[in-house]
């Protein structure tokens, strides 16, 4: 190499190599990120409003939600997944609370934490009425606890 260039070929080569490694790493992370999910869908229909009783909520095990139906205010859907570490909470009619079996978190009926290590209240999901009259729940859309669907 007779002429001293601004950047030597060796340096340029290293820059190219590190860039290639960087791009590969980013590509690997994208590779590992799933594009489809072999899971139940996040938005789904749960049936007709008439199918849900008043009073204690209906637990849907596969979807992990509690469906509340109030005579005056209508429908509300709460997540059954404890905000602490993901265990499924159980609703007890005796004290109208959600109890988590894993570390003892207790949520009152509007989802807020009464005591226990849970950092956040239970999430409430948007429930709407679909065109065919069935109830539509979307777990990707979190709504405030006061949200109700009047049918």
């Amino acid at each position: 190499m007779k002429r001293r260039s601004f950047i030597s070929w060796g340096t340029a080569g290293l820059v190219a190599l590190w860039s290639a490694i960087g791009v590969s790493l980013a590509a690997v992370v994208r590779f590992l990120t799933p594009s489809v999910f072999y899971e139940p869908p996040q938005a789904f229909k749960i049936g007709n409003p008439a199918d849900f009783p008043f009073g204690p909520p209906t637990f849907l095990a596969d979807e992990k939600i509690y469906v509340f139906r109030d005579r005056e205010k209508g429908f509300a859907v709460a997540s059954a997944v404890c905000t602490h570490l993901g265990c499924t909470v159980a609703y007890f009619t005796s004290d109208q609370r959600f109890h988590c079996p894993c570390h003892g978190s207790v949520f009152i009926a509007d989802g807020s934490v009464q005591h226990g290590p849970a950092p956040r209240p239970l999430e409430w999901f948007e429930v709407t009425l679909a065109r065919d009259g069935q109830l539509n729940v979307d777990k990707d859309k979190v709504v405030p606890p006061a949200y109700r669907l009047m049918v």
Partner: protein
Amino acid sequence: MNVIRDVWQSIVRRDPLSTDKGKSELVFLNLWLHIHPAKVKKENLKLKHTWYLGFITFFLFLILVTTGVALMCYYRPQSPQAYQDMKDLQFVVFLGRFLRNMHRWSAHGMVICVFLHMCRVFYTGSYKKPRQFNWVIGVFLFLLTLGLSFTGYLLPWDQLAYWAITVGTNIGSYAPVIGKQLRELLLGGHSVGESALLRFYVLHVAVLPSVMVLLTMVHFWRVRKDGGLSCPVWKLNQQKNGELVTIGASAETPSLSVATAAKDKTYGLMEVVTGKPIFETVTAEEEEDTVFSYPYAFFREAVALMATVTTVMALSLVWSAPLEELANPAKTPNPAKAPWYFLGLQELVSHSALLGGVVVPALAVLALMAIPYLDTNPSRRPADRKWAIRIFTIFVLINVILIIVGTFFRGPGWAMVPPWVHVTGAE
């Protein structure tokens, strides 16, 4: 006959083991054994110095790899076949129950022994200069052991597995910035399901063992290059300042002491370079305390290996690993507990997920790694290190107590229930 002797000598090219030359060649001509020095200090081999915990940990790893590969012939990482395969191993596969038990008890044993090994290295001060980075590699090996145990825990796909991993990955999601994405990458989805099972399987049988092997190689290599097995604590008072010199030793190390070359020893001359000294030296007195690795070190290691193997086998014959009901995402068992080595963590997490689950453990790990750099006291004698020993002992005790509380004192709903109180009908 000459033919047999020739064939034998073409494979085994060393001198007979009855000669000193043969004993040395067994070590440095052999691929598998040449990590050993040809001669070791007798005192360093004493049981009470290291309890051979490092070796035992490694032998347990070998048992895990062997039994693991065997189990792989009968296990499919799919739901629900995974659970059925566990039942098959228990009822139908010849030695299936035995091999699975060996795998599980070796795993528990390895977690215990790697922790005890870390304690031993700390108490004998064997992490001090120039072995600091080897300690750090050791901490990584400890984390890898926990990681292998965690990924393996999901594979039986029963209720215990499913919920332990749900809890564990949710703890990880509390990590700032990357927590949620890391959890999704690990699970291949939003919750523990088929993708999680497959990914944990890949981690457990391929990725983590490879990293473990690579780091173990570095760890052994470094032990060798940092001066071999450390000197026992009770010999420290008699130690002269003629320390071993290693590659890259700084200018502050004392100059080499000169000894006359012995007649029956060969010295290799690798290269003449200027700069720092590059080969080990041994004082004349220390030379008298050394023995050949074969048979001294080797038979001790062999005893450690056989003791480990027979203990694991005996346990596996009488004590069976548990298998609960098939994983059911709709039903959380009460209480839902992580494996025992994570129960201390779960106890912390039950008080605060971010602080207890991420911050405190992360700080603890960083503090562990920093020990050799924070501890500038060059002395290894216990009398000179009282506070270091006290602080570390407190750390160990806290861990043990947390695990005991999590195991025995936490009942349904994670309520504090002493083990002598009988709780009925927890559902």
